[in-house]
């Protein structure tokens, strides 16, 4: 595993200049995600209108992998329907945990730059945290954690962990 394949320019660019960074004044959904293993914290606000994500923003303290993943996630889901966002969440989790066969059709596009994370089990949660938090926000779970479920690749359960 060459880590350089993970720290690619697109990831470094999103880390340097995160898109949709901040907090929406008007938000129908909001969630805070924690990764207690490394102290990362991510705050996601989004505006859902007619089941469509018309705006989304994130902010927080995190590593480059998490921040780039969050930034690219917001650009990917903005304008998408809730159900399409959930498909992306599912596919991203499968990608990060090495379960997605990228030779088959999928919807991830450039997000496949994160495929290298599957070789770094300790960093998988960094990449997944934004998606985990987005899922929580869409399901009105205001507070979630990568430890909320034993398998972070699974859909978060209803109980929330602070």
């Amino acid at each position: 595993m060459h880590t350089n394949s993970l720290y690619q320019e697109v990831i470094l660019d999103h880390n340097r200049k995160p898109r949709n960074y901040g907090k929406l004044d008007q938000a129908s959904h909001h969630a805070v995600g924690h990764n207690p293993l490394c102290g990362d914290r991510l705050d996601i606000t989004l505006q859902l209108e007619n089941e469509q994500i018309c705006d989304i923003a994130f902010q927080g303290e995190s590593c480059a992998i998490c921040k780039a993943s969050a930034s690219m996630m917001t650009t990917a889901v903005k304008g998408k329907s809730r159900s399409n966002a959930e498909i992306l969440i599912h596919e991203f989790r499968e990608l990060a945990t090495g379960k997605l066969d990228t030779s088959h059709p999928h919807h991830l596009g450039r997000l496949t730059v994160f495929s290298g994370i599957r070789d770094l089990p300790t960093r998988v949660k960094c990449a997944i945290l934004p998606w985990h938090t987005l899922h929580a926000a869409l399901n009105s779970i205001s507070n979630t954690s990568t430890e909320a479920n034993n398998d972070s690749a699974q859909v978060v359960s209803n109980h929330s962990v602070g």
Partner: protein
Amino acid sequence: MNSAHASLKSEITSDINWRKVRTDFPILDLKIDGKPLVYLDNAASSQMPQLVIDRLVRYQTKQHANINRAVHYLSEVATQEYHDARCKLQQFINAREDREVIFTSGTTDSINLVMQGYGRKFIQANDEIILTTLEHHSNIVPWQMLANEKGAKIRVVPINDKGELDVDEYERLFNERTKFVGLIHVSNALGTINPIKRMIDFAHRYDVPVLIDGAQAAPHIPIDVQALDCDFYAFSAHKLCGPTGVGMLYGKAALLESMQPYKGGGDMIASVTFEETIYNTIPHKFEAGTPPIAAAIGFGAAIDYLTAIGIENIAAYEFTLLDYATECLAQIPGVKIIGTANEKTAVISFTIDGVHPHDIGTILNQDGIAVRTGHHCAQPVMQRFNVPATSRASFAFYNNKTEVDALIAGIKTVQKVFL
């Protein structure tokens, strides 16, 4: 560097061939992704020399049985070897008696033993327990559990910007309600060596017992529990080139005798009926069940190994590595060393501007360099310095300047990636 360290440095014995010492550790020959392993995570766990590995093999192949029980040959051999390991530890810390050394599963277990055995018996509502900002979670959480149960209070000694304890403030915290002090000897997150002798003496003016968490000190500083006059001293084998799963608690005999057992079971009893159990004498009172016999014997072999080199020599050599690494790191713009105490062991916590510690750890790993990244189980220290986490390079006597250079080159690679 103070005079004590300067004298240690001047005493460095030229007849130790540190390059040869390094060859005692087979794991250090590993290649990670084709790069030589640069193991700088010794504060988390140290590596094991062949001599200790061989000792474990010899025990398992020629000496293993349960101890303190049967009359057969193997049981007697194992019992004797286990006892010998206890005596090696007694000598290593200069305890008065071997029964003052209790085998535990590690430092955390030792601290929990004191909390359960001493704390639950002698600490009451409104009593105060003094801890410091530098404590590892293992010397915070057990006391919080006790404080919550008893309605006792925890008072915390602050640190300055260099990561040194405010000893004057420590002394001001004492009052008639103070019943216990838990004190880390060397900070795992920063490397700060605390002035424990002065602090122990002060606590004793109030008749307050002091527990020293020596997990990070015992591998690097000669320990003399009688000279320190500490009441309890705890550390783990795996940070002293020994196996995981075993550690020790030193306690003054009178204190240990006054305490209630922590775990009930076999070996810790003198006699049992359903009406009454009479507890065994120390140390057995605190060693319920079959102990980690092999690990304890390996612990003894590790102590022999370290003693043969000499902890003073190890300390002196590691100080030269610390000085060199500190100097090199200080010259890199954007790198900040967290923890700059005048008295330090060879631990360097650092941050790199604009780069999260986990990214640093992952990129260094690409060059075969193992450092710890995170909060080091010392979140109050991180909060004090207002950082979520740091990267930590911690050195052992088998490390060398070439490895420091590899770390420096690795840090420059990190900076290049994040330029």
